[in-house]
């Protein structure tokens, strides 16, 4: 790490996330002045972005090589009142809340009180979303049956392909002009709408070019008073910013800066869930790297420094403050950018290159949890690539995660994507696949499977509140066989999936009509060609996901019922339900029996794994293939972020002996501590789920550092990964840390500021997790060697 990088790294890690009201204020004044004019909504949105990019404060840090921030300075984040208008109470509690706090100064509070809140409190999307939901939807939402991603943030989760490096925004404008010509010549009834969309996209292209120009001007100005050495860097930066992203980049540095401005355009336009990702940086940028190195313009070390500066940019942008349930389901600063290395080329051959290894070095050195990274591993990739990645993973900060490119290709093809788009794509965010540059893969919320089971066990009534939330599916005491219970579960599940889908569809149309994203639309095919917005069916593949949560917990709970109540008949349903309602108080003996004698998921025990399969199939049948209102399709994926904690709080005691309020299992991992037969058994269990029919699954495994100490063991871990992938497993990620370290970190957090752990699909500082999530991670089974 160079001293420059070290300094910038200290700065990003050391500075406290802070709220800036600047964007909110600029946006408010823009819309206030605009109200009398008559622009179509997409053009309004584009002009708003142009206004922001023209007027917001810009920043070039002291030693920076890659420039530009989302807010006025590193770690200072804008807010998005058009999506979620924070209340004064929100702003009051942000600085002092125990986890993911944000500083809010008096000035910001005052501007919110005087300008932002009066204008937006009735106009924000959040208001519209909740107003459009039915009482049934709201009751289920409040009970924690499902969550809603779009109540505070916008559809996003987009990943770039290589277009921007080939075309620049002038190239995009040419494409737009061609589409305009086509629609001008058309007499289609919606041609005017298409032309308005395209006009908006064109305005956005000019806006981002102007934003870069402003940075060029600032860099030139700073150069006048800089030291000779820095002057040279600043003049170079000015030259870079004059050229990109207007034109296609000419150098490695210009290519990185091109992405970064593009990223800023997208995340200033809207607060998307998740933020934009560059995707396969080792592929898109390799031609620039090769050319610069061959021409003697760049050494591998200077490329590494530029990459390190690039890495820091993501770390400077905490996800804007979330509140309420959205904060509960995603309690992290991580904004889920993912950088991918490895995979295959357009011919399906090994695509690992020199830059892939260089990037792994950077991941290892930077150890920045909020710059997410993964490898896309194909059977065509060499073992040394995998082993090098495992060396980085062994460092213990949960990066990079490991994805099965060959299984992902099958997932893409099953979902109707072309082979070419499949090969160019990969995972994004936590784990969900996306055809890079061609898909809106929109995650919309989690469904709490164990909650659905709890409702099934109470004939549709939520025992936490006594409210009837689901249909009457019968008193479980009257069920003669396990299959009757499972059918009742299926009926409840179908009901709540229907409810969630209806809500989603209304929300999707709200975004299409009220909050189009013309900047993002420029980047994603075929928005330009179709003259349609990213939020309105523009992308080639508009996909909607609802994420299933609690597979391990729900499996174990059902397994306990099947084994004890129906198969062995050692426990009556009556006693079991009484015990659940009492949270096992006075039923300790029964609870011991349930905990100790239930076949659990994660042990390669077919009795449990067969139930996991049925649970998966029930969810798949309820959701997969349904049309969404944007001409796309609903798909399933299984991941939790931090919602398994929140959902756990909403579920009472369960038949596997889990007490009320305890976290659910995460992703497709077994219940914490229920897997006792080692990682091969876990992988066999998890491999029985058909990953190919999903858009992503998430498996967390924890290893004690000793197990992986030597090269031979590391290679065997590689074989474990390869075997999981032969079983078509989608993704695996590792925590390599012992419980003692985590316990010590709870005792003395200030001494463990740099301790990073894998949560679920992302890494975070251990100190930034709340106590419950910390405890949950400690309770995960740690694989060891005896």
């Amino acid at each position: 790490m160079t001293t420059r990088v070290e300094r910038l790294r200290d700065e990003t890690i050391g500075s406290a996330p802070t709220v800036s009201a600047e964007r909110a204020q600029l946006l408010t004044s823009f819309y206030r002045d605009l109200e009398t004019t008559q622009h179509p909504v997409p053009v309004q949105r584009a002009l708003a972005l142009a206004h922001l990019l023209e007027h917001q404060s810009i920043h070039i840090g002291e030693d920076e090589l890659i420039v530009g921030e989302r807010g006025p300075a590193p770690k200072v984040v804008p807010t998005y009142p058009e999506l979620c208008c924070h209340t004064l109470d929100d702003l009051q509690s942000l600085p002092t809340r125990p986890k993911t706090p944000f500083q809010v100064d008096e000035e910001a509070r005052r501007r919110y009180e005087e300008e932002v809140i009066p204008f937006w409190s009735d106009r924000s999307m959040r208001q519209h979303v909740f107003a459009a939901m039915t009482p049934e939807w709201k009751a289920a939402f409040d009970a924690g049956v499902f969550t809603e991603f779009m109540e505070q943030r916008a559809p996003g989760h987009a990943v770039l392909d290589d277009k921007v490096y080939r075309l620049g925004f002038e190239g995009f404008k040419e494409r737009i002009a061609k589409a305009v010509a086509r629609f001008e010549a058309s007499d289609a009834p919606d041609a005017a709408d298409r032309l308005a969309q395209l006009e908006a996209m064109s305005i956005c292209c000019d806006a981002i070019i102007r934003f870069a120009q402003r940075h060029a001007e600032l860099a030139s100005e700073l150069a006048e008073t800089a030291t000779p050495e820095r002057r040279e860097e600043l003049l170079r930066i000015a030259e870079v910013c004059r050229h990109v992203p207007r034109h296609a980049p000419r150098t490695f540095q210009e290519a990185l800066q091109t992405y970064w401005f593009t990223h800023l355009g997208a995340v200033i336009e809207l607060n998307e869930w998740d933020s934009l990702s560059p995707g396969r940086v080792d592929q898109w940028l390799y031609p620039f790297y090769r050319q610069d190195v061959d021409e003697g313009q760049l050494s591998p070390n200077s490329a590494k420094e530029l990459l390190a500066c690039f890495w820091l940019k993501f770390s400077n942008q905490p996800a804007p403050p979330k509140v309420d349930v959205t904060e509960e389901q995603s309690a992290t600063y991580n904004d889920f950018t993912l950088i991918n290395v490895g995979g295959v080329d357009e011919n399906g051959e090994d695509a690992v290159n020199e830059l892939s290894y260089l990037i792994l070095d950077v991941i290892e050195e930077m150890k920045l949890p909020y710059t997410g990274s993964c490898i896309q591993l194909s059977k065509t990739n060499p073992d040394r690539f995998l082993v090098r990645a495992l060396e980085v993973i062994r460092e213990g900060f949960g990066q990079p995660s490991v994805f099965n490119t060959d299984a992902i290709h099958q997932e893409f093809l099953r979902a109707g994507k072309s082979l070419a788009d499949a090969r160019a794509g990969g995972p994004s965010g936590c784990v969900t696949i996306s055809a890079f540059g061609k898909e809106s893969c929109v995650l919309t919320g989690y469904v709490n499977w164990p909650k659905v089971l709890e409702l099934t066990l109470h004939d549709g009534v939520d025992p936490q509140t006594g409210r009837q939330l689901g249909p009457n599916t019968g008193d479980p005491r009257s069920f003669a066989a396990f299959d009757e219970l499972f059918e009742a579960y299926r009926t409840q599940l179908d009901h709540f999936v229907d409810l969630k889908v209806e809500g989603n569809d209304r929300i999707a149309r709200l975004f299409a009509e009220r909050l189009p994203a013309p900047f993002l639309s420029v980047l994603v095919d075929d928005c330009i060609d179709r003259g349609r917005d990213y939020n309105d069916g523009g992308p080639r593949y508009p996909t909607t996901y609802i994420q299933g949560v609690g597979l391990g917990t729900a499996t174990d709970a059902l397994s306990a019922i099947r084994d004890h109540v129906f198969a062995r008949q050692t426990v009556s349903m009556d006693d079991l339900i009484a015990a659940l309602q009492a949270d096992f108080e006075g039923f300790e003996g029964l609870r011991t029996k349930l905990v100790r004698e239930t076949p659990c998921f994660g042990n390669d025990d077919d009795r449990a794994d067969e139930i996991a399969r049925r649970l998966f199939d029930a969810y798949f049948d309820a959701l997969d293939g349904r049309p969404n209102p944007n001409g796309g399709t609903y798909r399933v994926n299984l991941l939790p972020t931090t919602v398994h904690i929140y959902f756990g709080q909403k579920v009472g005691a369960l038949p596997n002996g889990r007490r009320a309020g305890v976290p659910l299992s995460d992703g497709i991992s077994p219940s914490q501590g229920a897997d006792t037969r080692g990682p091969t058994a876990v992988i066999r269990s998890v491999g029985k789920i058909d990953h190919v029919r999903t858009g992503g699954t998430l498996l967390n495994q924890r290893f004690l550092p000793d197990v992986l100490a030597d090269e031979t063991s590391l290679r065997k871990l590689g074989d474990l990964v390869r075997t999981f992938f032969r079983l078509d497993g989608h993704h695996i990620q590792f925590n390599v840390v012992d419980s003692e370290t985590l316990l010590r970190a709870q005792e003395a957090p200030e001494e463990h500021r740099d301790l990073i752990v894998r949560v679920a699909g992302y890494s975070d500082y251990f100190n930034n997790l709340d106590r419950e999530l910390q405890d949950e991670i400690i309770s995960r089974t740690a694989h060891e060697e005896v």
Partner: protein
Amino acid sequence: MVFDLKRFALHDGPGIRTTVFLKGCPLSCAWCHNPESQRTEPELLFWEDRCTGCGACVTACPVEAVAMAGEKAATDRARCTACGACVPACPEGARAIAGAEWSTDDLVQEIERDLLFFDQSGGGVTLSGGEPLAQVAFAHSILTACAKRRIHTAVDTCGYGAWEDLAALAEVTDLFLYDVKQTDDELHIERTGRSNRPILENLERLDGMGRPIWIRCPLVPGYNDDRSTLDELAAIVKNLSSVRAVHVLPFHRGGQAKSKGLGRECEASQEGDAHAAANAAAEILRLSVGVPVHVGG
């Protein structure tokens, strides 16, 4: 009689392996890591620190072998039949039975679950113990069944047993992990209870059969880490032609808690820096053995 089956074993031979621990061992090494493997019959394991003194085990025991001794349960081991009735009764999971009868078919079925992991990693199954030679018919039957299914097999042996038995196993085994603990016979007898002569003789004869052998030496500081012992070990290895590697295994305390759990004493050996000692020993062995020397399995 099997006392444990461990999947994802990384240090019992090449690749990812399933290790089957057979119960019963002719030696009684003072530092034994798996004391529950020594006797041939099932035994009760009891973790006293988990015991809350609730007395559920006292009620559950059909032969009145368990009674309260102050705050904790105590088991009269002369009376205990290791029937296991107390195990599910204990709410804290403080009790377990080490040792269960397995049929070859069931065992092989269990082993085959990880076939794909073996294929990927060049792994397989390892019979360990206890001592596989102590249950030679069962061991032979497992090894034969695995060989038929093209599963790589290894036998981890202390080498103490009848040559005919070892020769029979060698017919169906791909690799031997052969322990040499001490070259000096008197010292061997002192700390393991048996002479090392049959062990060293068996090793020489096994070498003649041409099966690959990895020599494993559990390094116990103060017992077998001195220069002359290591030189003698190196001399023995140098004279053999089938040895492919030597593994120096750092001493660890894993056995002590288990000994306590069995109601037995275990020598609290001075651990020192076990890894440093093993590394130093490996350095010495590397000077002359002529095959790769590794620290750890």
